């Protein structure tokens, strides 16, 4: 439901970043917890095994009707992720497609997760000709998917499995990027500050995510 998108230049600097939330009710989790950061003391039995179980159960629940709560011993709200609901009084979902991080999500944490997966992106991309690398990394309940195009890498953080939508979204963003890059004033390391680009990315997100 929540996404973080970064376009990364060949020198590993971000040239465009945005936070997106989807209104599509893939995976609504009802909870009153307002914890925004993993409190390790709150789940002493947390271990790797359960950690690995968690994302798959979350993805399994993605296709189910929203009424069914995920059978998850460690729901994402413990982990400071996008599943962390906002306060009930402020509405279930923060402003849709505003570019602001959803409530309860640390902006810099998402950036850090995305950039820490760059090493894995580079490991994976040398052995494959595919440009779309889906679900290459996980951090808590965040999944990382990437799209490796010439002179740009697109990295997206997502909390639900949405391969097809993300692929189409990547293709759209890539097209916008290529059109931007065809401008002779753009270099691969130029930050993209165009509001139009921003609008197009949001429109694509609305369509595909």
């Amino acid at each position, binding site marked *: 439901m929540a996404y973080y998108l970064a376009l990364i230049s060949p020198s590993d600097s971000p040239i465009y970043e945005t936070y997106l939330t989807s209104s599509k009710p893939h995976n609504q989790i009802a909870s009153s917890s307002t914890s925004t950061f993993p409190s390790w003391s709150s789940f002493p039995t947390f271990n790797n095994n359960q950690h690995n179980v968690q994302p798959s159960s979350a993805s399994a629940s993605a296709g189910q009707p929203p009424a069914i709560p995920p059978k998850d011993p460690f729901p994402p709200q413990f982990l400071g992720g996008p599943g962390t609901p906002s306060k009930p009084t402020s509405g279930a979902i923060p402003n849709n497609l505003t570019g602001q991080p959803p409530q309860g999500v640390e902006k810099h944490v998402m950036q850090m997760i995305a950039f820490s997966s760059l090493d894995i992106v580079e490991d994976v991309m040398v052995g*494959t*000709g595919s440009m779309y690398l889906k679900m290459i990394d996980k951090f808590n309940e965040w999944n990382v998917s990437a799209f490796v*195009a010439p002179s740009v890498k697109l990295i997206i953080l997502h909390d639900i499995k949405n391969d097809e939508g993300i692929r189409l979204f990547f293709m759209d963003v890539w*097209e916008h990027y290529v059109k*931007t*890059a*065809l401008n002779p004033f753009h270099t691969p390391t130029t930050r993209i500050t165009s509001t139009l680009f921003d609008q197009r990315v949001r429109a694509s997100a609305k369509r595909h995510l």
Partner: protein
Amino acid sequence: MFNLQSNSASSSRYSLPASAPSPPPNANQTKRSSSYLSTGFTNLSISGIGSSSSNNDLASPAGRGGEMNILDRPINKSRGVEVGLPAWAFLFSEIVSYSQTRVDSVADLEKRLSTLGRESGIRIISLHLLRAAQTSNNKDPKKEYRLIPALQFIHTQVYRYCFGKAADGLEKSVEGDDEYMLTLNNPPLTQHISIPKDLSQLSCEAFSAGIVEGVLEGLDMPARVTAHTVPTDQFPRRTVVLIKLDRSVLDREEGLGK
């Protein structure tokens, strides 16, 4: 048509534009026979070299309908966007003479041309892959990641895209395992350029070499690419583009195995 003369270039610069709008009577014929200046090439010359705002007329038909932003422009428009051979020859002659006024040596001039070509190459590979992905319905877009298929991709697809036909040869150098050569018997980009005697070392195909370098860079295969004129009796303008690959590429290739 436009000779590269070391001294006459600057004096003729201002007289040329006047004659440019009236193409030769057989312009259509020229365009048809020189199919390399087709769709893809428009983008090359507009995006790689063109200087945006002043180029709005060249950027037609997209630019004709007033100020259309670049994100709304279709990237697959294939009709009516061809750039004629005379236009290219004029543009390239201006590029060469402009570059020439700011360099001390032939090597510097070639480097400048190569830098411009590289800018084009980076864009060409993006555009080419994007179009290929879109025509195959966006299903699992791919790019070449092994060395030999990547070189073959450049030899056939990129060359056909830029110059209208595949390169005439792709060889591995006997001197080093990191060197490959792409041969073009009659390079079309520079067909109207005759090199004056005092610049006999110069090969304006440095621009093409730059394109190859940019494409390789887009495929994550950094290389140093240079162009050399190696005439034969049959082809006096035969040009060899020498690709010297970065060590990292060969190491990676070794790691991937056969």
